[in-house]
């Protein structure tokens, strides 16, 4: 157990020396709407035009997205037509589900429930079954189940939270089916937190009713424990460490008819042919857009966007991402992990290196994140022992304000997380910086999860659910709506997949869709070494990478 090194201890002294004065001083005033807008426009990554560019090829040519996303969308396929033998099919299925987070597992479960033979359903997943962002979710799932609440209010909160930029038809489905999802998971045996005989409902930012359903501090762990068990017990085929590297298409219709999978251990490709493909590949935090750390799991590299774009899928809102204002800036061991908003709502103050408050702590997330970035860029941040920048979150102040014991009672998970690294947050402040949290936009879908071309026409055989999709959360997602989304639309994808398989008889596979895409890549001069999907981030040290020879 090391705690803070001596040079940081010196900086903490400033926090301690100013604490008494800060207790007496009034809080920074709330910003006016105009001030908020100016701050966000000046510092929030979403408003940095240099971080974005228009797509140069593909069906959404001209659409402005984050440049890092544009780079993976304008990358060479890992396998080109002719590289692989498509006549030798390894797996034949009715439904191929790519990804095994909440959306993928819900799709599998409901496809079985809708009458499909489980042995004809394949889940292909990059890492182990269930390795996903879902397993990390803590704060709960929004659903209007309370007597004072209803789906209409949930709908309106969601639309307003996204500044009226979402697809209302998708939001209606979300709000109307979320209570059903809570009951479904309860029936499967998810142990939701309870108060007496009823489920506990917690408040969340942007929600005008308390409608977050959680399972202690380990909501995702519990939900995934149950869903993994269910899907395994049903006998669905599971291929772990088999990410998809390309979709397969019917050469005459352009519809999707399977995928090329890649065995991460043996580096072999495998051909999976299926009547329907469900994309449930999740988000892209591990692309570290604009250099941010992330709350996301190891495999969150935006693969689904790449695969879908190559077969003609429309994209929406990929010029906006959610940066949570308070990620862990140090210790390195938990860099980018979440410090819950509650830490600020019970009195934790944000301070720069001089011990000064620089923002009212409970401004909207994008505003607080912008203010923290400003302090660092303008040289008032705190240099962490790993050389990154952060600001202080004065947690000991919470105990001064609300009494000893408050931290262990109100934010026990955070207390334990830091104690593992020798930092007692009741005694010492913590270093925080915004962290890349969520992909707001994604692949265009309709209410039954059909992936749409920009024209609005559905791509035959291709469904998508979860973080890979866009439209549900518009340009800003509310807490707890992501997990409502994955289960509501994952379920719909499973039901719709079962229906589509009955309408599909002939399955032909090809890589024909890549022909024009490759011609486009050549026309804009993309170097052939830039390939996607990238599958996993590369964290190897620079000294090693400089000398590396890939065989």
């Amino acid at each position, binding site marked *: 157990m090391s705690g803070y090194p001596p040079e940081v201890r010196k900086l903490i002294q400033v926090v301690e020396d100013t604490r008494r004065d800060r207790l007496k001083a009034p809080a920074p005033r709330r910003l006016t709407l105009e001030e908020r807008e100016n701050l966000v426009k000046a510092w929030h990554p979403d408003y940095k035009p240099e971080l974005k560019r228009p797509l140069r090829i593909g069906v959404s040519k001209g659409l402005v997205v984050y440049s890092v996303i544009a780079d993976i969308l304008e990358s060479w396929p890992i396998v080109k037509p002719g590289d692989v033998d498509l006549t030798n099919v390894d797996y034949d299925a009715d439904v191929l589900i790519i990804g095994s987070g909440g959306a993928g597992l819900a799709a599998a479960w409901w496809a079985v429930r809708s009458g499909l033979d489980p042995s004809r359903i394949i889940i292909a997943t990059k890492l182990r079954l269930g390795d996903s962002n879902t397993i990390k979710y803590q704060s709960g799932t929004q659903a209007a189940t309370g007597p004072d609440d209803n789906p209409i209010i949930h709908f309106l909160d969601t639309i307003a939270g996204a500044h009226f930029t979402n697809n209302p038809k998708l939001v209606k489905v979300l709000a109307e089916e979320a209570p059903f999802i809570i*009951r479904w998971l309860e029936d499967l045996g998810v*142990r939701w937190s309870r108060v007496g005989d009823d489920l506990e409902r917690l408040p969340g930012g942007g929600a005008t009713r308390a409608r977050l359903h959680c399972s202690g501090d380990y909501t995702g762990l519990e939900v995934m424990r149950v869903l993994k068990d269910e899907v395994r*017990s049903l006998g669905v085929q599971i291929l772990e460490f088999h990410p998809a590297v390309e979709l397969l298409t019917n050469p005459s219709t352009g519809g999707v008819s399977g995928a090329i999978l890649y065995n991460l251990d043996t580096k072999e490709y495998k051909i999976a042919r299926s009547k329907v493909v469900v994309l449930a590949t999740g988000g892209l935090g591990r692309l570290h857009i604009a250099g941010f750390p992330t709350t996301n799991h190891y495999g969150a590299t935006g693969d689904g966007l790449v695969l879908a774009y190559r077969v003609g899928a429309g994209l929406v809102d990929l010029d906006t991402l959610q940066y949570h204002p308070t990620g862990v800036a140090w210790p390195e*061991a*938990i860099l980018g992990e979440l410090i819950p908003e509650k830490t600020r709502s019970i009195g934790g103050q944000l301070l720069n290196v001089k011990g000064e408050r620089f923002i009212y702590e409970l401004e909207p997330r994008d505003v607080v994140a912008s203010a923290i970035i400003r302090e660092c860029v303008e040289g008032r941040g705190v240099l962490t022992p790993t050389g990154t920048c952060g600001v202080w979150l004065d947690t000991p102040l919470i105990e001064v304000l609300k009494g000893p014991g408050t931290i262990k009672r109100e934010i026990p998970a955070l207390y334990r997380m830091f104690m593992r690294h020798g930092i007692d947050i009741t005694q010492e402040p913590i270093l925080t910086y915004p962290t890349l949290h969520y992909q707001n936009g994604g692949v265009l879908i309709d209410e039954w999860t059909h992936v749409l071309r920009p024209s609005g026409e559905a791509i035959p055989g291709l469904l998508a659910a979860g973080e890979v999709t866009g439209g549900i959360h518009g340009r800003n997602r509310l807490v707890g709506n992501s997990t409502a989304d994955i289960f509501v639309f994952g379920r719909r994808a499973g039901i719709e997949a079962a229906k589509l398989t009955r309408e599909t008889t002939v399955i032909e596979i090809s890589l024909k869709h890549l022909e024009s895409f490759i011609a486009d890549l050549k026309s804009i001069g993309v170097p052939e070494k830039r390939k996607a999907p990238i599958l996993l981030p*590369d964290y190897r040290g620079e000294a090693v990478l400089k000398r590396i020879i890939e065989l």
Partner: protein
Amino acid sequence: MSQAPLRRYITIFFNGEAYSVPHGLTIMKALEYAGFRFTRGSGCRGGFCGACPVVYRLPGDYKIRVGLACQTPVEDGMYISLIPYVPLVEYVPRREELKPDAGYVLKLYPEISRCVSCNACSKACPQGLSPMDAIQAILRGDLRKAAELTFDCIACGLCSLRCPAEIRHPAVFRLVGRIVGVYYMPRSRSVEQRVKEIESGRFNNAFAKLLSMDPGSLRKIYDEYLKTGRLPGDLEV
């Protein structure tokens, strides 16, 4: 900004080879720095998924210690070995086959009756849980207590590797958690009630109205709702 502190380098040993890595990294990040790229043994990287159990020892000490590679900081002279996979034989019964009694758990996993209360499992648990107490609770027939004690289990499997009785703790605890979730938790009537209301079409008219509105009108309604706490008459349900 204050002066950048100098980075201190330490030596770790992995598969018998020495590597110089920055102090302050986790085992996982230190190995990546040294040139390893994980496919197995890395999952959520935040201590929630149990993908990265690790065993290690420290210089001058013969004891084998355990932890999670994504949560354990490297120390100078540390000898490290990763465990990407714990090959437990697990039973995954269908929900209908679950039975709400400890005898059923014992039938599937009879080795739990061999627990000698040595507590090696608890010493190995990176979550700070007490698997031994949970096993004892099952043997007493108290599945509810066992489920409560192991709710935070991330199924890394380190306890099973240490257990002299060969108990498959993560599998046992998952089974017990399922049984308790399915049989012992009270059903929420409010959720049932709301689902029925939705299925009966109670909100259809209001939704039809909302879907016919443009964003400007929706904004007006929401502004008014925030001020008054009320929705317009035709949206009240």
